[in-house]
């Protein structure tokens, strides 16, 4: 892996010249010098272009951050430079309105994680470690659900929830995520648990451990990385879910962050400072997860591919 950095053709030729330089004549060495300089310039250009892409990509968020400290007056005077004084009270105002959405989103995320993990860890363990008639068919039934797009069952799901009298509760917000997390989790975990060496389980069996004991003492501790990924995917899903909370919840304090922000936007549409402060606050949790758990974040993102678990 360490040679990867020299894989680009230019860097390779550069390295070769550098290596042979002490043995060559002065005139040749100046050619190498020129080549090295050109190589360095190429690298600089690449970094500049990438820097530009980074800037354009992050610009809306920079703009959000800068504007969130302004009053409308300050925004009209200078829409892009930070201006003093910083109006930190925008954040206090936004927080007052957004705080209930936070509570809901976090509660729903917690319920969803616990629910889906409870379902999928056990199921994955059984699918991966037990032989029984119908194992393949049952697993296929779970895997098939990965193909069912959430949006396609939105209407019947809504009617079902209304019939069950679950509208305007936190449970109704969590249910699709419990189901989705359980399906994805079963697939990912089953693949993972199958790769745990059989010797571990044999040794435990010799020591007198039964199925439940092996589940708790061997499988769960070993599969923590996958469990973490599933939890993270679920949090991101809950945080970004939009149509479901929009349709199933009408009481303001039960709105999740994503659905609440839309309402918040219509309330504050004319005041940029508090509006953008609210957007900034709503972004913080996922940003923190991204910064501290970026490995899991990416694994979750790519593990979310249908069929990725079979790779």
């Amino acid at each position, binding site marked *: 892996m360490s040679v990867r950095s020299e894989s*680009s053709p230019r860097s390779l030729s550069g390295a070769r010249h550098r290596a042979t330089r002490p043995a060559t004549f002065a005139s040749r060495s100046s050619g190498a010098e020129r080549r090295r300089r050109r190589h360095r310039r190429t690298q600089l250009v690449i970094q500049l272009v990438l820097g530009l892409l980074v800037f354009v990509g992050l610009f809306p968020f920079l703009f959000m951050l800068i504007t969130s400290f302004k009053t409308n007056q300050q925004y009209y005077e200078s829409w892009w430079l930070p201006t003093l004084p910083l109006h930190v009270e925008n954040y206090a105002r936004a927080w007052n309105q957004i705080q209930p959405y936070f509570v809901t989103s976090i509660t729903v995320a917690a319920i969803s994680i616990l629910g889906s993990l409870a379902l999928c860890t056990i199921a994955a363990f059984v699918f991966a470690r037990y032989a029984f008639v119908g194992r393949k068919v049952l697993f296929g039934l779970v895997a098939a659900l990965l193909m069912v797009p959430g949006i396609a069952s939105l209407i019947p799901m809504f009617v*079902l929830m209304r019939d069950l009298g679950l509208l305007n509760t936190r449970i109704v917000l969590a249910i699709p995520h419990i189901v989705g997390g359980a399906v994805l989790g079963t697939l990912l975990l089953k693949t993972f648990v199958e790769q745990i060496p059989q010797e571990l389980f044999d040794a435990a069996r010799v020591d007198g451990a039964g199925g439940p004991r092996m589940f708790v003492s061997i499988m769960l501790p070993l599969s923590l990385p996958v469990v973490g990924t599933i939890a993270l995917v679920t949090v991101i899903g809950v945080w970004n879910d939009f149509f479901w909370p929009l349709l199933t919840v009408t009481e303001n304090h039960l709105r999740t962050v994503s659905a609440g922000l839309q309402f918040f936007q219509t309330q504050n549409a004319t005041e940029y400072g508090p509006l953008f402060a609210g957007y900034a606050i709503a972004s913080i949790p996922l940003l923190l997860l991204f910064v501290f758990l970026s490995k899991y974040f990416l694994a979750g993102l790519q593990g979310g591919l249908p069929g990725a678990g079979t790779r």
Partner: protein
Amino acid sequence: MRTWRKRFPWYAYVALLPLFATLAVFAYYPAASGIWFSFYEWRPGFESVFIGLDNYRTMLTDDLWWKSFRNLGIIFAFGVTIAWALPLLAAELVISLDSKRAQFIFRTLLIAPMAFPGVVTALLWGAMYEPNNGVINRVLRSVGLETLAQNWLGDPRYALLSLLFIGFPFVAGLPFLVFLSALQNVPSEIFEAAALDGCGRLRRLWVIDLPLMASQIKLLVFLATISVLQYGFAAYLLTGGGPDNATQVPVLRMLGVAFQGSDWGYAAALSTTLFVMTIALSIVIVYVRREDRTDVRPL
């Protein structure tokens, strides 16, 4: 007796019961009832009347529904061309960096926008598109391009394009990560050999990088087809399908029929249609992936 117990261990089935009970109620049943009631004049809570294929017949003559698919076509075409060119460029540039550290830093910064909630991104772009105070028109005016300033989301000519440009330069997303990891997995000998043969960078992209990524690109195309069928959230937030239905998409049409029109049976028919399309595409994916494994091996 013992073999019977071994083949049907009751505890295995019991352990699977919670999962399947949940899935039965909240996954299989809704999917099935959606299909079932698409043949009814569905009146939840009251008696529904069987009307056969009437809902589907209505769908065939629903201009708005088909117009929304035309928009999806545009969204898809844009999504797999322009919205992939920049991630590909970014991936090529990142792997061309000498220093591992720089590669890591740029990759992280490039995908950082993904860490923001989708609603925030969409609303921020909505604010930037705002005709009077939005950043885009302000920039255009301040550099003297007053004539280019538009009512981006309010003008039927530009609304769809404006929606598509949300998230520009599109690097923060799955395609970039797939391109990047595909390029990083190419054995460096291949690039070295190409360089020794005097293969330029653009030529290398065409004759080496893209062919080597073919299977990943194929997968991305199919994923894009499926996800485009679910497109609707940015349109709902920023334009609501308007102006003049210029940004109408199937999902919005379906929700409109159900929640504004209260025509649940028809909405179920629309949702079943979307569902069948997605399933069909997913099956294609499965086959493409299977085929992949065989034609990737020889490498």
